[in-house]
């Protein structure tokens, strides 16, 4: 897992300044903020709006449109499970229920100890090796309940 920085307006300002002159700069800026902090802080909205000379409503409307952008910091590890049709045909619904039970959260939520965020995703492009998951940016195909238990377990053991 990449080390995420805590929200820092100065750092955010640097990121925005670096990209604000690109044509259609809003999405690249949001990605840069999201990559650095793991979410987009409420405080970024007015900064971005000012830099791009657009309204805060436009910035907020764009952030909230995309599924990728979180509104609060994620857990230490992010597990994304594909829920699209190819993975459904290979039992991803049972896999998700299993993981939800094991972690004690629903998809879209973070465990109480802050160790895992569980997210659903619609297609990782691994449809010939379903079901597929992504753990901290790393891809896994043909994931059985045993495999996902092993992945979660090995992270937990590392502490």
């Amino acid at each position: 897992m990449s080390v995420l920085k805590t929200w820092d307006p100065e750092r955010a300002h640097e990121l925005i300044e670096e990209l604000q002159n690109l044509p259609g700069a809003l999405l690249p800026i949001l990605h840069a903020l999201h990559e650095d902090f793991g979410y987009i802080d409420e405080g970024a909205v007015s900064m971005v709006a000012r830099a791009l000379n657009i309204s805060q409503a436009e910035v907020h409307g764009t952030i909230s449109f995309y599924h990728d952008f979180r509104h609060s910091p994620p857990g230490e590890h992010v597990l994304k499970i594909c829920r699209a049709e190819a993975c459904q045909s290979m039992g991803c619904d049972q896999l998700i229920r299993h993981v939800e039970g094991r972690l004690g959260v629903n998809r879209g939520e973070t465990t109480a100890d802050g160790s895992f965020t569980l997210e659903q995703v619609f297609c990782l492009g691994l449809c010939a090796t379903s079901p597929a998951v992504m753990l901290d940016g790393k891809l896994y195909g043909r994931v059985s309940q045993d495999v996902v238990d092993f992945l979660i377990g090995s992270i937990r053991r590392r502490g």
Partner: protein
Amino acid sequence: MKIFVPGDAAALAVGADPVAQAIESRITSERMDAQVIRNGSRGLFWLEPLVEVETPEGRIAYGPVSVDAAAELFDAGFLHGKPHFLCRGLTEDIPYLKKQERLTFARCGIIEPLSIADYIAHDGYRGLERALDMEPAAIVEEVSASGLRGRGGAGFPSGIKWRTVLNTPADQKYVVCNADEGDSGTYADRMIMEGDPFVLIEGMTIAGIAVGATRGYIYVRSEYPHAFRTLRRAIQIAQQNGYLGASVAGSGKAFDIEVRLGAGAYICGEETSLLESLEGKRPQIRPKPPLPAIRGLFAKPTVVNNVISLATAPIILEKGAKFYQDFGMGKSRGTLTIQLAGNVKYGGLVEKAFGLTLREAIYDYGGGTASGRPLRAVQVGGPLGAYFPEALLDTPLDYEAFAAQRGLVGHGGIVVFDDTVDLARQARFAMEFCAIESCGKCTPCRIGSTRGVEVIDRIIANEDRTKNLRLLDDLCELMLDGSLCALGGLTPYPVLSAIQHFPEDFTKPAPPFHAKGESQETSLWR
């Protein structure tokens, strides 16, 4: 000696990295004269990680190779072509591959993706070379005459788009590559971007030269970080080698490309939503007209094409329209990159001339279901495609033949389901997906999809079934006719086909707990 271990995301997902490392460390420790190359995937995913060894007779394939098996392969002497039970013989002779007609994918899995020298040695940049000697209108004519239709799903003739942009005067024009491959069951775009990125860059450059555009954007979905990184690097390499920039290949004509990342929104695969996203706006779709070819990115004339469409332009220019035209059937010319996915034994990429039947694809190539249970349903064309029963498997993969059965070929993804599938649940998912991904611009899609989930829940729960099935039919008709784009407009396809071909799944006794629990699922989403 060269050893190939794919760096394709699907190969990585089944352990290609540790295998490559194991092979590399063995080579180093035993000081062997061998080199590991990370190629793209051949698209034979049941054999991944597929390790190939270069021999004078050709490449010999071994797969699926685990870290332990890699050690065994060395002990068995695989570097000298010695037998091992994982040996699949010459890669080119594997029937699955040998029977294909690989035009767009001619190099994928063969070359080193980021070696421009390798690309050129395998006939790369010949299409561009020829295009640079032609008048723009002649390039457009060549693409038109080839019969190439948009491979993203809509099947619109690419030549007409290009001609419209060419004939629309403007101070700035754009080429936008739609690499937002969101349909489940599809991965051809991803494979090309990771395995042969220069063919896409060449295709976009040809499009730019043809229509008079000097800037290109590739919009890649965020679920494809590997493709994004490969493209970024490939663009730099093309720039350093003079194939992108102020004077493409010394022609004096300018063209450059930038790659941008999406952020997890299926609707951004719709071209006008994609353009809004690129412009940095909330990506709600735009009503058409005006067409993007006339008023596209930043209100300038824009070619918006799918990855496979653009990656096919080089071979059309290289070999001529007639060569490409000669493949296919009816109005579907050339090859289709079929992607076998889901519950299928031999999942993978099959590039074949249009006209192969679904049955041939699923059984002759796919080998039936992975679970070994009987096949019950097939969804072709992504989440907006119809569910076909066994009885329709003889439908040829052809745009018109599928349309006649109220289905769509789409981007060529085929998702196979065995007899454990419940089509009422699949119909419910189609509505749920539409509700999650709707951009909210038009009412039939925004509201209709949520109402659709509720009505299907009532049908599953056996509440007023006859009345609710009639209501669902009415809702589907409204969405089909009244939605602004294909998301709301085609979501009824999977729903209605499920009801039509699998009515028994809608008349089962109500499950004791499903209906309520399920309707809460949508609201749990974020």
